[in-house]
């Protein structure tokens, strides 16, 4: 059995928090460039120029792309033949988030209780952690810091089987139209279809981790991703002030569901679709 020290996990997570905040993934940068080439609105092109320049400054100077450095959403796959030594996995991850957000001059945006007190925890913990046990002796950590300008516009619809593909398209489009200019478009749209209400929401989050230039492995869902992207780019929302580049990509993840159900969750991400990944 292979052993890993929690200290190693903490160090890597800290580094990942900084990387994700400063460096826009190459696929997202390329998608912004492509959007700039095809954008029809002159104002939209000006906005895209500023967004692209911003990503370049952030990367060159190690600065956060956005002041909302988000809640740390972390997907962990733990090999069942791996022994984690020196403390709990969850504590190690949270220690890494606290270290990364503090050392990296990232904004601490987490309150410990949502309704009455809303006291800032001062170190951006706790992270939202999803853990899965898998084969093997490695640990895979995927971090996607999530800003709340876009998160607040995310939504879920509990459709029924008769709603079908057209119902899914309408549900996604309604959520996007309601979000409009608010979630810092051009957006990256994560869609979770199937499962239960909670499962669909997690699938929509997981969908965002896939690069924007990789389509779903299932051809029907890959086709639906492109059809949805086309629809969203016809809304006129554009890069915040109107135009044809409303979204950079639509990523769908799907899962088994009940005979009576067709849950559809949409997580909207802004143009700063940040993520970082490690296999240890």
């Amino acid at each position, binding site marked *: 059995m292979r052993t890993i020290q929690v200290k190693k996990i903490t160090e890597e997570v800290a580094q990942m928090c900084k990387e994700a905040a400063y460096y826009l993934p190459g696929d997202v940068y390329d998608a912004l460039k492509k959007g700039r080439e095809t954008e029809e609105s002159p104002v939209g092109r000006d906005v895209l120029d500023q967004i692209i320049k911003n990503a370049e*400054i952030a990367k060159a100077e190690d600065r956060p792309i956005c002041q909302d450095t988000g809640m740390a959403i972390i997907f962990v796959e733990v090999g069942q033949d791996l022994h984690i030594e020196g403390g709990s996995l969850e504590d190690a991850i949270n220690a890494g988030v606290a270290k990364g957000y503090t050392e990296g001059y990232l*904004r601490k945006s987490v309150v410990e209780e949502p309704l009455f007190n809303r006291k800032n925890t001062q170190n951006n913990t706790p992270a939202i952690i999803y853990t899965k046990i898998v084969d093997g002796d490695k640990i895979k950590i995927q971090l996607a810091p999530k800003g709340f300008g876009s998160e607040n516009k995310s939504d879920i619809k509990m459709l029924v089987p008769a709603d079908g593909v057209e119902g899914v398209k309408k549900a996604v489009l309604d959520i996007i139209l309601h979000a409009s200019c608010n979630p810092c478009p051009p957006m990256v749209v994560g869609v979770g279809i199937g499962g239960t209400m909670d499962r669909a929401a997690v699938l929509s989050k997981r969908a965002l981790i896939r690069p924007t230039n990789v389509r779903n492995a299932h051809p029907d869902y890959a086709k639906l991703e492109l059809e949805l992207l086309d629809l969203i780019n016809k809304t006129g929302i554009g890069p915040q002030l109107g135009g044809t580049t409303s979204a950079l990509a639509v990523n769908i993840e799907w899962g088994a569901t009940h005979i009576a159900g067709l849950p559809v969750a949409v997580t909207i991400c802004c143009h700063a679709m940040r993520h970082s990944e490690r296999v240890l």
Partner: protein
Amino acid sequence: MAEKIRITTPLMEEQSRKLKAGDSVLITGTIISARDAAHKVMTEALARGEKLPVDWNNQIVYYLGPTPAKPGDPIGSCGPTTSGRMDAYTPTMLDQGIKGMVGKGSRTPEVVESMKKHGVTYFAAVGGAAALIAKSVQKYEVLAYPELGPEAVAALTVVDFPAIVVIDSEGNNFYEMGQAPYRRL
């Protein structure tokens, strides 16, 4: 893009009323940051009949919670946050004399009505262009509520801070004007 209009603070009502939806502006002077928690605290103080620690008359409010400044920098990344979350508090704040708001995203009809009444302009900065926007900020000084951390009320000294008029004092909405030609559903 059309010629950019240079404006300096304080922003007087007469000047604000001249700005039109779609105008690109460069703001120089002092703008004051406040977001969710500060708006809550300030409107609660006003409801108790208290005086606010900052005089908002003819000021521009910036809906912002920056990242911490790195050593040697005046401020961290500092782009706009979603203005709509401030809508519930905004008419009360506009009664305090605010003449400009900088943020991003749509506003409620109640806010627009209050803007028309007081001659207020709503500007948008580019959401998520936070490292770029930081280049136009020379100084960040907390004025009130330091306990709110990134949500404190602070004075930002800005030079040529880029923004666009998205709702003018007559209620014209550039978000709607900008989207309409490209809506092809």
